[in-house]
């Protein structure tokens, strides 16, 4: 899932100065699961903003909405009747959701209430960890299901750098060296021969450009001749 963290309150409050009526829009999917931008967090933030505005004597009104997914037009349409009543929309979705909300309601200023951090996993209660850089050329079949692109800060493809100490990364003694983990898992599963191959240079051409993907079953529908 996509993991995000909420921006600091001061930054959010400052970005909303000058807007009288603000709709705080939560998203019910990834950011809700990571306890950042779901319905509950949107409600809490709106209450906090409201209180701060009252204390500062600012004439501001904050209301709350939450849609299932801000990255889906179908759900954004649910706001069609309400959105035009507001001077600004404060989105608590990931960067993709924020942009889609801004595109759908493009006459209303849309502001970001979260920083999108990574594609990751729920490692423990309240703990998330990055696992994927969406590099568009997955190596996991050969690296024992551990991604060197996401988990090695240098993204080394041919093995560890020389900075590994006691199996930890040179960038942080608390972080495991991805290549140590890869080596250990491949060793346990008898697949160390995977590491002998010289891995060729990555083709970054696709991942360097904004991605767009059409499912094969829909390609005819969207082709010029359809």
């Amino acid at each position, binding site marked *: 899932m996509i993991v995000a963290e909420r921006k600091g309150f001061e930054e959010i409050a400052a970005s909303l100065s000058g807007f009288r009526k603000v709709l705080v829009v939560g998203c019910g999917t990834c950011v809700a699961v990571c306890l950042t931008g779901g319905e509950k967090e949107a409600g809490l933030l709106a209450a906090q903003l409201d209180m701060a505005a009252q204390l500062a004597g600012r004439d501001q009104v904050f209301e709350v909405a939450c849609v299932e997914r801000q990255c889906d037009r179908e759900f954004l349409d649910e706001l069609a009747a309400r959105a035009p009543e507001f001077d600004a929309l404060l989105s608590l979705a990931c960067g993709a959701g924020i942009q889609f909300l801004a595109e759908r309601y493009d006459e209303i200023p849309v502001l970001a209430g979260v920083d999108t951090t990574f594609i990751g996993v729920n490692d423990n209660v309240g703990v998330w960890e990055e696992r994927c850089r969406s590099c568009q050329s997955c190596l996991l079949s050969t690296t024992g299901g551990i991604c060197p692109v996401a988990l090695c*800060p*240098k*993204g*080394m*493809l*041919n*093995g*560890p*750098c*020389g*900075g*590994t*100490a*006691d*199996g930890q990364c*040179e*960038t942080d003694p608390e972080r495991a060296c991805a*290549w*140590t983990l*890869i*080596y250990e898992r491949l*060793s346990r599963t008898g697949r*160390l021969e995977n*590491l*002998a191959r*010289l*891995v*060729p*240079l*990555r083709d*970054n051409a696709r991942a360097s450009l904004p991605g767009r993907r059409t499912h094969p079953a829909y390609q005819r529908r969207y082709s010029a001749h359809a």
Partner: protein
Amino acid sequence: MPEFSQALSQKEFVVTLELDPPRGVDTTRLTETAKALQGRVDAVVISDHRGATPRQSPLWAAHLLRESGLAVVLTMTCRDRNRLALTGDILAAGAAGLQSLLLVSGDFVTLGDHPGAKPVYDLDSVQALQLAEVLRAGSDLAGQALTGAPELFAGAVAAPAATPLEPQLIKFRKKLQAGAKFIITKPLAEAGQLRSFLERSGGVEIPLIAGVEAAGPEALDDAARLLADLRGSGMARGVHLSMPSAPERLADLLKACGL
């Protein structure tokens, strides 16, 4: 002009020293140190933004030292250059007559004093060696013929002190396979680290230079002891000294171990 490769073929035991380019335009200290090093070291290894801190481009510093009559090994990291920039700098080095390259991945940016810099690592150190081989053979990575291929003597780093060792050995074998012509190890704590590395490596046919670090003046004695151990062991074709705080203390160190 003396070349590192010549020193390796002519001398039984070589001494190289790491030097940093200045953090500014004043190269006086660098050239003075170089003058003092004449005849004392077989090559100077010019670092490349060591510790991920900005300095003059090592290309210029390497050029200056070569002009002053020293054999030079030019370090090039993958940290700050994508494949275009690596190609360009290797070609520039070749054009300047700087044949000896040490191709490394490079200390990570967050370890330096510009932690917000974007790390590149388009290639890793194995792939950088492959790039050097491609260029040496006369074309670039797109297969386009070069107008003049660089003469290169490209080496790599090994890390016998890193743990666990086995993944390092796998990477090391790839570096040999990718065409490394020499190896310089990262600093060793004791000669035994190199011994177990060599025993487990399955044999090293190319010259291996053992890294010795004297981090401060108080570390000179330890460095001298290690240097003597390494020289006596016959395991390495030489030593590579890094004395970041005081390269001018090199003379004391060499004297201390009779070199």
